[in-house]
């Protein structure tokens, strides 16, 4: 049985084309289409329903240390109202998930996880957090809207008190108030643009969604679907679980060194990572004459040296791009992707593919 977010009716009313994603019925696009939605986020502002994302609260005197032992990043010493990206590693050094850790205070953390992994993560946390730490899955009570783009801030400024706008990237205001609707407002996102993510009660979500669309008319706001979410994160070279990350991909092969603190005290997977010399790297490529999508094998001459983990047309660049998982020693060699029997040349490029203006 597919789930619906609190905004299902709003998506249908706005012309959303509904598809199944991670067990939810969500819009892949609205009438404007993926390319227009994508460009609107890059140049103006777009609104996404990302309520399918999972949320967990971890509480207790020992919460910080307990969490720190199950994540790769170091979450000690964050300030109240700070957000940190991390990987939830498994014993082999692969990833159970990648997550955002919000510090409410030293004894209470709000964790955002991928929809497709939410149940697995809850089981994993139950098994790996000590008994004196409580955790509660609150995914079904929380809606999440992502307001993304260079004009997101000027729009949000009209709707909230200045104190409710988090100032720094990866920080949040716990109890923001958007025209009477209580929201946790964080300056985060998955698009490579500036913007915010707003977490609210399901009951408020439809009114909040409509308010943002109406008030954002002067900015040229558009509702945006999962299609644009994917092309935006890919242009920004952000990893997606199940593509660049997975249970069997050592996390020290994914180019996320900033989120893996090998010098900190013991954590799950640390020993496996210490013992593992990376064999693969994550690199980006421009694809010549066609689109190379996930799972396409990548060759150097006759030898398969890796594969495409994500690929699409990059709307702002006007050409196809792909992220590759490639054996280290081939990262600077001439590469080709096999796309349905055709060989497409890959031109290695720097990541991210697109940097915000």
């Amino acid at each position, binding site marked *: 049985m597919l789930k619906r977010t609190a905004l299902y009716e709003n998506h249908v009313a706005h012309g959303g084309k509904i598809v199944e994603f991670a067990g939810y019925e969500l819009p*892949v*696009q609205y009438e404007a*289409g*993926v*390319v*227009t939605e994508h460009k609107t986020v890059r140049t103006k502002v777009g609104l996404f329903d990302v309520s399918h994302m999972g949320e967990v609260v971890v509480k207790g005197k020992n919460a910080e240390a307990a969490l720190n032992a199950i994540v790769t990043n170091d979450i000690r010493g964050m300030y109240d109202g700070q957000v940190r990206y991390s990987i939830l590693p498994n014993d082999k050094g692969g990833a159970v998930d990648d997550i955002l850790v919000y510090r409410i205070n030293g004894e209470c953390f709000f964790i955002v996880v991928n929809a497709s992994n939410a149940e697995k993560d809850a089981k994993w946390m139950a098994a790996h957090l000590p008994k004196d730490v409580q955790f509660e899955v609150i995914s079904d009570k929380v809606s999440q809207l992502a307001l993304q783009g260079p004009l997101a801030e000027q729009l949000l400024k009209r709707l909230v008190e200045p104190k409710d706008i988090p100032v720094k990237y990866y920080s949040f205001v716990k109890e923001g108030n958007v025209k009477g609707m209580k929201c946790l407002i964080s300056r985060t996102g998955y698009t490579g643009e500036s913007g915010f993510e707003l977490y609210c009660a399901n009951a408020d979500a439809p009114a909040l969604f409509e308010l943002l669309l109406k008030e954002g008319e002067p900015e040229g706001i558009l509702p945006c679907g999962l*299609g644009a979410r994917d*092309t935006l994160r890919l242009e920004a070279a952000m990893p997606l679980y199940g593509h660049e990350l997975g249970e069997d991909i050592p996390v020290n092969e994914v180019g996320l060194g900033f989120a893996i603190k090998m010098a900190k005290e013991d954590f799950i997977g640390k020993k496996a990572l210490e013992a593992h010399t990376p064999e693969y790297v994550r690199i980006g490529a421009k694809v010549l*004459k*066609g*689109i190379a*999508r996930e799972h396409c094998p990548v060759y150097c001459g006759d030898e398969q040296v890796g594969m495409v983990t994500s690929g*699409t*047309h990059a*709307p702002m660049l006007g050409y*196809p791009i792909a992220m590759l998982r490639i054996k280290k020693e081939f990262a600077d060699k001439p590469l080709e992707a096999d796309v*349905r029997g*055709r060989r497409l040349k890959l031109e290695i490029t720097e990541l991210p593919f697109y940097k915000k203006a």
Partner: protein
Amino acid sequence: MKLLFRESHEWAAIDGKIAKVGISDHAQKELGDLVFINLPEVGMTVSAGDVLCDVESVKAVSDLYAPVSGKVVKVNDELEGAPELINQDAMGSWICEIEVTDVPNDLMDEAAYNKFIKE
């Protein structure tokens, strides 16, 4: 000139021995923004129902099928750099010309096709 449609949403505009081939407006809407077209090769021979070429939308690749049998004699190179022309005007954007050797009898005229897509 005769305009006929396949159930898989390609059209053929047949004028004497030559058929211009494209995809329907319904098909372009279903596919969404087209970002790449892998045009057929001039000189290739196809039977009706064969894969003629493929198009890529942002989300997926889709095969297009030959609505008629014959030899590809011309391709619309303009689409190579601008596949979005198909989104803008699907019925006006021909993909290739086929020198027709056979027209299958299960193709639909416009009225029948419009009825077909409504069902």
